């Protein structure tokens, strides 16, 4: 509860700073504030509580995921100074929107009531619509914003319809009450229709196949930092929320529903990977790779009762690697028209540190050991086999092999081609974020217990 209030307070403070002409201080103060909030959040981990008639529920799950979101936001804010160099006058807006986005994200994992959940997802989505279109003189960014907005509002509509049906069936928005009522023998059929609609809405946000069509275009068109936000923060938020929705409402995940998850999971992995193989634009490639990672994360739903830890771990591993990769992309594609792979040529010579970071983050996403991505996959695999879905694991293994193909396309460009341009200077923030993100990835790769004990 305190987390949410503090985050919103920080967002308002950002806007006030602009008025008070403290523009230079916005980013440092925000980062410090977020670090403080991170401490505040983690201090609540062992004291579960509910607030405001069960509107907000603080428990280990919400604290662990909120902390992850805050860490990701710190990284994203740290990158903003340099990225918005040319839009200094609007910096307070950008930062404030990011902070509000974070508040939506936190609400989405600590809700105790479906209306709170809907508020959260709307705050998150609207912030993202604005950020996607934030490069307002760029027609691509406008296109991305509008596309995302149109598709996103449809998804929100479906989601809301689902919530209404659940309300119709249960007569309450409260998660705990729904969970209790769903134990009873006779449930009206529209309860299940509601759950399905809710799932569809969330799958859209996650960009799982077949609800993924918006993702590549929006990712490519949106400013790179927004793409980073969408593919790391927004994706894991939606995944965590979907997981929480299905488990907290105690929806008995029936066999039929599991088959649907199996199909969507396999389809997301396969389509995402195969499409990624053909991309020459790195942002698009990462978008498709994100779709396939969504497929991996959906595997967690197959062993829903026990998978919270592995989901958190996968989300952390994936988003840290994603942040590191996007940081390098921001550096390489700064002042460039597009994000073709050829821009990465010779990075190994011009900037060995960032090249190493990008290599490491791609290796992590590909699931090569020592990096966290490996353990993330391993945990999901063991759990999924335990719940009896060997077929999904085999599909996932085959997909991991395919994914190496395109991750290595980038690594090859870095190390075997010659650079076309001279070395450009790298801002400190980029180094700091890239190295820190990958070091964190490595550390949790070597000590997975650090993350797992949060939900232990």
């Amino acid at each position, binding site marked *: 509860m305190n987390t949410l209030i503090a985050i919103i307070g920080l967002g308002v403070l950002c806007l006030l700073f602009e008025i008070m002409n403290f523009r230079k201080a916005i980013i440092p103060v925000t980062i410090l504030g977020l670090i403080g909030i991170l401490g505040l959040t983690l201090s609540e981990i062992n004291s579960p509580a509910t607030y405001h008639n069960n509107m907000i529920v603080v428990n280990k799950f919400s604290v662990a995921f909120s902390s992850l979101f805050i860490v990701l936001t710190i990284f994203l804010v740290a990158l903003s100074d340099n990225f918005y160099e040319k839009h200094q006058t609007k910096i307070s807006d950008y930062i404030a929107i990011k902070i509000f986005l974070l508040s939506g994200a936190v609400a989405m994992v600590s809700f105790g009531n479906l209306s709170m959940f809907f508020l959260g997802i709307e705050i998150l989505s609207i912030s993202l619509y604005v950020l996607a279109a934030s490069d307002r003189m760029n027609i691509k960014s406008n296109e991305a914003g509008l596309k995302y907005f149109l598709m996103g509002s449809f998804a929100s509509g479906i989601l809301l319809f689902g919530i209404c049906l659940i309300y119709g069936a249960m007569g309450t928005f409260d998660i705990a009450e729904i969970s209790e009522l769903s134990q009873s023998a006779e449930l009206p059929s529209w309860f299940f229709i509601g759950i399905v609609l809710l799932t569809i809405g969330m799958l859209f946000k996650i960009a799982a196949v077949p609800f993924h069509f918006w993702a590549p275009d929006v990712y490519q068109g949106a400013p790179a930092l927004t793409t980073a936000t969408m593919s790391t923060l927004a994706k894991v938020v939606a995944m965590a929320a979907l997981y929480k929705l299905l488990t907290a409402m105690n929806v008995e995940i029936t066999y039929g529903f599991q088959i649907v998850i199996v199909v969507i999971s396999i389809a997301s992995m396969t389509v995402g990977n195969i499409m990624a193989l053909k991309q020459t634009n790195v942002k698009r490639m990462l978008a498709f790779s994100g779709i396939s990672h969504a497929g991996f994360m959906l595997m967690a739903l197959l062993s829903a009762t026990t998978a919270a*830890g592995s989901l958190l771990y996968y989300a952390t591993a994936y988003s840290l690697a994603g942040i590191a990769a996007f940081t390098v992309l921001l550096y390489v594609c700064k002042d460039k028209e597009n994000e073709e792979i050829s821009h990465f040529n010779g990075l190994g010579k011009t900037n060995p540190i960032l090249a190493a970071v990008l290599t490491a983050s791609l*290796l992590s996403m590909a699931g*090569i*050991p*020592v990096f966290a991505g*490996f*353990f993330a996959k*391993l*945990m999901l*695999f*063991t759990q999924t*086999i*335990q719940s009896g879905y*060997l077929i999904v*694991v*085999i599909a996932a*293994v085959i997909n*991991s*092999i395919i994914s*190496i*193909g395109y991750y*290595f396309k980038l690594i*090859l460009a870095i*190390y*075997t081609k010659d650079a076309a341009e001279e070395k450009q200077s790298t801002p400190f923030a980029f180094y700091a974020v890239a190295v820190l993100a990958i070091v964190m990835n490595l550390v949790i790769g070597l*000590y*997975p*217990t650090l993350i*797992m*004990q949060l939900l*232990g």
Partner: protein
Amino acid sequence: MNVLLLLILILVGALATFLSGDKLASKVALFFSVAIFGYAILLLNQFNIGYDISYLSPWIANPKVFMILEADGLAMAMVVLTLALTPIIIFSSFANKFNNSKTIYALILFMSFAMCGTFLAGDGILYYMFWELSLIPIYFIALIWGNGDAEERKKAVVKFFIYTIAGSLFMLAAFAYLFTKTHNFLLVDFAMVNLTINEQFWIFLAFFLAYAIKIPLIPFHSWQANVYQKSPTVGTMLLSGIMLKMGLYSVLRWQLQIAPLTAKIHIYIFVAIGIAGTIYGSIVALRQKDLKRLLAYSSLAHVGLITAGAYTLTLDGIRGAVLQMIAHGFVIVGLFLAAEIINRRYQTNTINELGGIRTHAPKFTSFFMILVLASVALPPTFNFIGEFTLLYSISQINLWYAVLGGTTIILGAYYMLKMFQTAMLGETNKKEFSDITLNEGISLSIIVAVLLFFGLYPKPIIDLITPSLESLLVSINRFG
């Protein structure tokens, strides 16, 4: 004192090499690799007089993973092989001037770290991590310092990488499956779990994919010749001398222990796959024009026979496999060094462009001759002992298999001697060929000395490996 310290030392060596700068890198790497080899001998000595040099500590709570390094005779033999070859490989490459040499020497040491880890690991996940980790340095060594056309090299190396990762991912799936039975990844527990015949079959197959690609066995060998040819010689030596032994070792250590029934039921098939590789490798080697490619195919033939021996599931077969692994490790490194020596002087490895080197360089010719003879398993070289034991064990399974396998000795002698004749003998070559330098001489002498010494006196190695192989066989035969 335990093997953990050994691994840490190698890692420290790699780091020190990387930090020492391009000028000093090769010397620092040599210093560390020799020191580490010395430490390994010290450990081996302690092991022989009965000290426990294994290491065990919990690592990850959920899922349960242990940091367990199990040093038995077999593992120690492989570790010492790795650490003996590493300084030779580093020393023999002094004449090559690498760009960014601090990185390549650090990568060599790092790779030796990962390979030692693979031999020692007693937990599936730890093992898998080392297994994959060893792939990353060789990928960059072959990619960045390799020779030939950059585009072609890239294709060959990426194919190799994707191929091997693909295989090992199935192994990972097998581990995940085994985990659901034992709730940890310990090899000792895997080796005790009672799997049905059907389960064993699929797990065996998953492992087989990983190892058949790494070793390589036909029909999974198509990456090999290209990568051997395109890699720099240090990379080829690492690949052929040590890395393919990871696959062979894992067959003994992991595959046969976890799923022995499949190997027993289908014994004729798996031995036949090995022998088929031997024959195929020998025949293809006959037609090679490039010296490095020829050696690659000869290597394919040798590992085929080793695999066949290992799959006989007899003590003789397994022991022969281990002996031949060690012998082959030395001889193939020596042969690739010879190829490199020729390449340094003539800038080519095409056999037909050579010839008449003998009169220019008698010392080099003698060394090369000994290596060629060792490779075709002439007594009293170490290779003879290995090859003979292997063929004997195969004859216990089926006499015709042994006859077929035996023909490869004849074929091997034919293509190796023909190559030697074309490349070294004949009319004096018009181009000058300076005889071996001191550096090359020392490297070759060490290799030849090892091959001859253990050829005459193999007892230390046999004594070292036999107890652990016997307990391995007990575990393999546990289903009666």
